């Protein structure tokens, strides 16, 4: 036996998961499951699509319709699934390498279309599956196997990118603030349109060791101590926010949703043909 959530929503024969000890991917995956459970969505109608990387392995453990695709392309596959059958609830599980580097183009265009897909990006600043290379979200001057002297790249704020590309629900949570993360994911799934939730995660094995971040618990504590709620952040000066993680809801707006717009066009055409 396992917990009710595991019994109900996981493929038990695939557990234990392959993630390293202390990896927060399991925490975020369970947060997604809690959100689906809270919303009481029929699991036959849920499709979880993932790309390639550590976090993308989550789809295999989950007892939904699951699609583990190619590197960076999860959102493009998900677009096909959702557009073909808009009744399905489509959730994309992706990572910072999968989504912000190789998958960046699909990400911005899905946001632009405002197609009703919820993307949860596990951001651990590193490519874990391939052994710790720098991702587009690695903090500047932090180290990775491909940035042995510290990364000189500027790091990417993916929430800002999502907002710029037209996503209609954008939020950031962390693997420490689990209750809040569950709520943000719930709201993202309920939201009609393209929803993006960035889940700040920890990779104790590659990112943590190389950058001397301590134990998994230390890394979660760091998330706790360095996260600032968006409402509080609004009252703070830029220099006070330097190096901090702003968490909460950035955008929650209504806009025409892609699959509905297509259906409306079809209805209009039917009328005009008659």
């Amino acid at each position, binding site marked *: 036996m396992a917990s009710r959530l595991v019994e109900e929503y996981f493929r038990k024969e695939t557990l234990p998961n392959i993630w*390293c000890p202390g990896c927060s991917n399991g925490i975020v995956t369970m947060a997604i499951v809690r959100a689906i459970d809270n919303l009481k969505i029929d699991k036959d109608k849920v499709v979880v699509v993932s790309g390639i990387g550590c976090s993308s392995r989550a789809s295999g453990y989950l007892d939904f319709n699951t699609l583990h695709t190619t590197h960076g392309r999860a959102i493009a596959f998900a677009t096909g699934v959702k557009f073909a059958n808009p009744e399905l609830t489509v959730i994309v599980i992706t990572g910072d390498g999968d989504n912000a580097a190789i998958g960046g183009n699909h990400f911005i265009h899905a946001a632009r279309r405002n197609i009703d897909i919820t993307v949860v990006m596990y951001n651990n600043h590193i490519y874990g599956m391939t052994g710790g290379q720098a991702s587009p979200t690695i903090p500047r001057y932090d180290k990775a196997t491909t940035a042995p002297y510290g990364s000189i790249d500027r790091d990417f704020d993916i929430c800002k990118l999502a907002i710029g590309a037209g996503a209609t629900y954008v939020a950031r949570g962390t*693997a420490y603030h689990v209750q809040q993360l569950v709520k943000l994911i719930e709201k993202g799934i309920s939201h009609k349109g393209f929803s993006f939730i960035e889940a700040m995660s920890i990779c104790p094995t590659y990112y943590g060791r190389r950058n001397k971040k301590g*134990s*998994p618990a230390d890394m*979660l504590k760091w998330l706790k101590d360095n996260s600032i709620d968006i409402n509080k952040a609004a009252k703070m000066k830029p220099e006070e926010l330097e190096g901090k993680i702003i968490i909460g809801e950035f955008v929650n707006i209504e806009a025409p949703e892609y699959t509905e717009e297509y259906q409306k066009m079809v209805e209009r055409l039917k009328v005009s043909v008659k």
Partner: protein
Amino acid sequence: MEKKLVIIEDWCKGCGICVEFCPVRVLEIKDGKVRLIDEDRCIKCGLCEMRCPDFAIYLEVKKDVEGVNAGK
């Protein structure tokens, strides 16, 4: 309503997250696995389950006399 803390040893990787975030410090890592030191002091808050990356520790909720499922 009765709650019981359950540990799935096979799934536990001994990362120690639950130990650190237990508000009453009743968990420890022994031989690479988590262990409940003192059941009486456990307040069944569920924070360990919330942050366990391996789904290896959880509160089992048993139905009470009225038959209300407290899990939902």
